[in-house]
């Protein structure tokens, strides 16, 4: 299973527990598409229409030291743990 940690404000808006235990998917795009079947619109909150990660979000996968950049079609393992985190922003 894949464990997905969402920003808490987004999880609250969609009435989701956090983190989520989800069936494996080959990419983050696929994982979020599946989640959007039961929670319409959720994927578009995290990804732009061209499939890239929204610019003020960071996505970390398992032990990666740096966030996933750009497109969200990077391959996922079947037991990866993913954190979606609001990027450093102030003001």
């Amino acid at each position, binding site marked *: 299973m894949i464990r997905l940690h969402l920003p808490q404000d987004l999880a609250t808006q969609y009435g989701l527990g956090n983190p989520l235990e989800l069936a494996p998917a080959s990419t983050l795009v696929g994982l979020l598409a599946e989640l959007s079947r039961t929670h319409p*619109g959720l994927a578009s909150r995290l990804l732009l229409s061209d499939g890239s990660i929204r610019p003020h*979000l960071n996505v970390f996968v398992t032990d990666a030291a740096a966030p996933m950049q750009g497109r969200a079609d990077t391959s996922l393992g079947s037991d990866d743990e993913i954190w979606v985190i609001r990027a450093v922003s102030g003001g």
Partner: protein
Amino acid sequence: MATDTILLVGTAKGLFRFRSHDRRVWRQDGLDFPEEPVYSAIQDARSGMLWAAPNSIFYGPQIRRSRDLGATWEASAETPAYAKDDPEAVTRIWSLLPGPAAQPAVLYAGVEASGLFRTDDGGDSWQEMTGVRRHATHDLWGAGFGGKCLHTLAQDPVRAERMYFACSTGGFYRSDDHGISWSAKNQGIRADFLPEGRQYPEAGQCVHKFTLSAKPGRLYLQNHGGVYRSDDSGDSWVDIGQGLPSDFGFPIVAHADRPDTAYIIPLGGAGGGRWPPDAKLSIYRTDDAGATWQAMRQGLPVNAYTGVLRDAFRTDSSDPSSLYFGTTSGSLFASQDAGEHWQEISAHLPRIHCVQTATAKT
């Protein structure tokens, strides 16, 4: 049954709601979408439902609806978006307009980059009205300081097939076929940011706001330099800015019943700080369709180095008119006598983007 007045105040950091029984004593009634910039929040007169468009820096724009006057908000399943291979993207939602009374599930949304969307199912799905961005003048549209936005939408109250929009920069456009195709209607509107001799183009003007009036075919318009009136639904415009201390500003509102009465809030033009002339925050009212203007500032501050944005000024249908506006420095003002006297309802809010009135039965 009594009626409360609600003010929907969209700011750079959320939607604030204020409520009053008598329109003199106000209390803050709620804060929705904290941290998220809100440029449009309205009450749909057909259903009483509230609509708002928070634009999260993290999660992008979203259209929300409330069936209980803001106590709870639902998210629409889909958000207006351009196709994945489109060179432009929808980054913010600037304007919301309920559709005709006979089509209660229809709503329109004006977006950045300038474009127009329509829902036929109460907000669950959105389709782009492609005639807007396919207009022959689309290449002339650019981004003003606020962005490249379609910020104002209106439905003609007499002719159901007639709609209007304005975008910055771009100008004023009219459709006579329910929004399928559009015509640029900028004849007489000056673009003073273009070289001499080229300041009256077909399109490319920076229209800050327009409003319908109580008289069919009459509109008022505040331009990026220039205040205008049209008596032929935008086919031609006449400059009515003479006598004002500055013809630069953002909002313009019209009296609900008196077509000769309109209100503006002038700001200094280029080199004038974009704050009120002489730093005296003032409303200017015309009662003769723009031939003359009267300044009103009783209760408003001096030494006011602030501004009022295009959607942050509103009136209602009461008599005498109630007027409300919010400033970029977070003050919210109200007048219950057509602008003669003002009270500050709230201060120290975030930068105010929009002010709208709503009602609640009590």
